């Protein structure tokens, strides 16, 4: 029996449905715990375009001020832009109000440390303990600071950081025709400025009104980007970009109106990054082996982590990686700009790759190692998870086994990965192989074992 997850308070913060679940009181308390943890000083706050953003901004302001912090409110701002600003401003930390790709009735608090990075797992659990203990710093009248607003510094700062790592003049000189679906998200205005003005592309944009609700399912995937694909075909665009509401994820459409597999987008970015930047690659266990092939061409290592941006970022920082990301969920992390998932860096790297090679998107994708990926969800009963995993492992004795996040079984040229969802009693099954036939066989075999 699937439970509806109306509220989740955990190590990754607070996420829930507006209207009695994620309440202003809960948001304020969590913010006060955060302020207590990071200490008195400036804390940066920004939000995506959800209707609950202003209400939660006031709640978080209240909690932060009560802890004696000074709030720098960036208003509607993409998450990566907030992260870059936190580090630049030497703030104590920051909070992004966004439920990322979740539906509009959700919202969440994403928490960042003084470097604008996700808290690592130790910091996260410490903060959660503080929240539950309710032992907050309580500022008196003369310690209470105010909210300062700065809506303009952060976007310019973000653009400047990104442009250091691409040949902007070369991109501008190509006058690419670019299609954009901004999902009316936090990046709407910024993306129009970035693509249309800063990179001088001939921009065709839809859903770039931040005052409107999301016009499509918020997660940018092939099946949610039909409007973007149509726009590309109608306008004859060279490339199409689809953002999520907080501007960290990016999906890409080629010049034929075909939305790329997110693993291929990451692969193209990795290809572009490794050509110019030293360092290894970090991806999660579910990301395509394409990345291994590309890294091998450049003589670099690939490090694999459990699923989750925070896990990838933590490892990237430790190994000083050149680039990283999570294939299927879309979005790349390029530390030279900032250790965060950033659709602007991704857009710039892809446009730069096109300008540098003179190739179309479809041609660039055709040049990638070819794999077939299949994915599915298997409901399971609570308490059966361990048995299912063990049965699966036993039925493939010849595979190399990785058990850091669910179960990954690995062969030459193919793999399968099963892990349980954090929010529902569901197993996520992903397989990859060099040919469609091989992939289907492996998928069917695993499916049978899991549903027997």
């Amino acid at each position, binding site marked *: 029996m699937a439970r509806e997850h109306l509220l989740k308070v955990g190590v990754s913060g607070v996420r829930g449905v507006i209207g009695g679940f994620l309440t202003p009181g809960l948001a304020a308390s969590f913010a006060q715990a955060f302020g207590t943890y990071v200490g008195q000083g400036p804390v940066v706050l920004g939000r995506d375009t959800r209707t609950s953003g202003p209400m939660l901004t*006031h*709640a978080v302001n209240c909690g932060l001020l*009560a802890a004696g912090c000074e709030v720098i409110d960036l208003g509607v701002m993409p998450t990566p832009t907030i992260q870059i600003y936190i580090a630049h401003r030497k703030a104590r930390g920051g909070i992004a109000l966004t439920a990322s790709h979740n539906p509009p009735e959700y919202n969440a608090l994403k928490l960042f440390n003084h470097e604008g990075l996700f808290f690592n797992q130790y910091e996260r659990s410490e903060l959660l303990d503080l929240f539950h203990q309710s032992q907050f710093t309580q500022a008196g009248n003369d310690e*209470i600071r105010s*909210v300062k607003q700065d809506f303009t510094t952060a976007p310019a700062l973000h653009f400047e950081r990104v442009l250091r790592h691409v040949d902007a003049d070369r991109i501008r000189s190509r006058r690419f025709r670019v299609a954009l679906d901004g999902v009316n998200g936090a990046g709407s205005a910024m993306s129009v400025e970035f693509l249309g003005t800063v990179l001088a592309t001939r921009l065709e944009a839809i859903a770039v009104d931040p005052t409107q609700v999301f016009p499509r399912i918020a997660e940018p995937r092939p099946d949610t980007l039909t409007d973007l694909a149509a726009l590309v075909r109608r306008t004859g665009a060279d490339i199409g970009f689809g953002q999520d509401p907080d501007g960290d994820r990016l999906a890409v459409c080629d010049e034929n109106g075909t939305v790329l597999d997110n693993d291929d987008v990451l692969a193209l970015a990795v290809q572009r990054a490794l050509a110019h930047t030293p360092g290894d690659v970090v991806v999660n266990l579910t990301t395509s082996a394409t990345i291994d092939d590309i890294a091998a061409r450049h003589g670099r290592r690939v490090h694999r982590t459990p699923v989750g941006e925070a896990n990838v970022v933590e490892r990237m920082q430790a190994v000083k990686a050149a680039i990283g990301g999570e294939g299927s969920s879309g979005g790349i992390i390029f530390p030279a700009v900032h250790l965060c998932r950033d659709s602007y860096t991704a857009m710039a790297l892809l446009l730069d790759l096109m300008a540098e090679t003179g190739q179309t998107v479809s041609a660039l994708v055709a040049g990638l190692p070819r794999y077939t990926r299949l994915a599915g969800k298997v409901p399971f009963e609570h308490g059966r998870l361990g048995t299912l995993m063990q049965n699966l492992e036993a039925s493939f004795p010849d595979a190399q086994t990785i058990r850091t996040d669910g179960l990954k079984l690995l062969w030459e040229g193919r793999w399968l990965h099963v892990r349980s969802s954090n929010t529902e009693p569901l197993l996520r099954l992903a397989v990859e192989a060099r040919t469609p036939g091989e992939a289907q066989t492996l998928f069917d075999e695993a499916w049978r074992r899991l549903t027997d």
Partner: protein
Amino acid sequence: MNKALRISHVGLRGIVGQGLTATHVLEFAAAFGTFLEPGRPVVLGRDPRLSGHMIREGVLASLLACGHDVIDLGVVSTPVVQHAIQRLDAAGGIAISASHNTIDWNALRFFGPSGIYLNTAEAGELLDIYHLRRFRFAPWDQLGKLTVTTDAIDAYLDGLARVFDLPRLRPLRVVVDCCNGASALILRRMNERFGCGFILINERVDGRTVAHTPNTSASIVELQLAPLMQPLQADAGFLFDMDADRVALADELGRGISEEMVLPLLADSLLPVSPGKLIIANLSSTALLEDVAARHGGRVLRVPVGRQAAIDALSTYRPEQIALAGEGTGAVMMPQFRFVYDGIASMLAILHTICDRGQPLSRILAGYPRHHILKAEVPLTSPRIPALLEELQELFPDGALDRSDGLRIAWPDRWFHVRVSQTEPIIRVIAEQRDREPRELFETLLDRVRRWN
């Protein structure tokens, strides 16, 4: 014992950080958001205290979450909030202000439609919702919207200018101690717009520092304001608390005038134009009120101490039956202002009286019978207060008895009142006599109260 938090029918009040926390603010504002009918906006204003920044954010979050549009007036006096509720036809409002408490305190004060205080039944319902914590939050697509306005003080001044002839006050030399509160913003603007020429002191508004306790008691006036009167050759001096709902005064001779005098002074100027009407005052206020009322054929209705009792009494009469209502603390409500405690309106009414009479303030005051009032506080140590009151009552069997709030016994020339404070753990003892100090009566009472255990 310093109570750092108090949740009652009057609202939420406490020392910020020690007793009053963000959580209290969010929950109480959510209770108010649940209590109010949806549909019309809610007005919000705050006094200059720094903690008002934090509390404002919490109040906004909860009201918006309950689906109410909010109109934020910024830093204003409490009467300005009440005026705006009426002007904007709002569902109600919240003033963030601990008024006359020290700067480290703050409070939420709740108002219904037309800016009137919640009566006891409504306040009780609000408290019940707060304690149940079952708030009515709106879904994601029906949340409220915030509007920030900066014209509330001007609109309030327009309202005052309709009742008072402000240019007529120009010849008077008036010193005002703003106590670093919201009155500074209002009076500065009044000077700009109407050329009133009020001399403002302690007018810096930073919410962090106050020149002295923002209290309208006679002792503060004596110390802070009165010594300035003669050097500045002022005709009158006034002192406000942080949110300007109370006022105290000093005369042109440099004497602090008891806050008790505000009510009789205003009664004396209002009753002639509203003969036979009612003055609502509490059991601890001066008997001079009865003298003044007798001159103009008015009548005094005595009610228990506290704003709530005055509000409840007000609501049992028609507005046109009432000339004035208030307390001996310098908090006075006038019918022209829909019965809102308004220190600035009280000041203007007194200044008009000075103009009308063409007499200095000291001369006007000298025209009243002299009542001598003695007040003391005794720490509350015994729970057996009813027995104490019983004993005192037996001691004075010949006076007119009122047991509606502690014990008050009155004779034609004197009265006393013994009661337990609602805000602090103390017993208040007050005695007053016409023409001479009731020293003997006062000492007898104090002795009994102090020895009681």
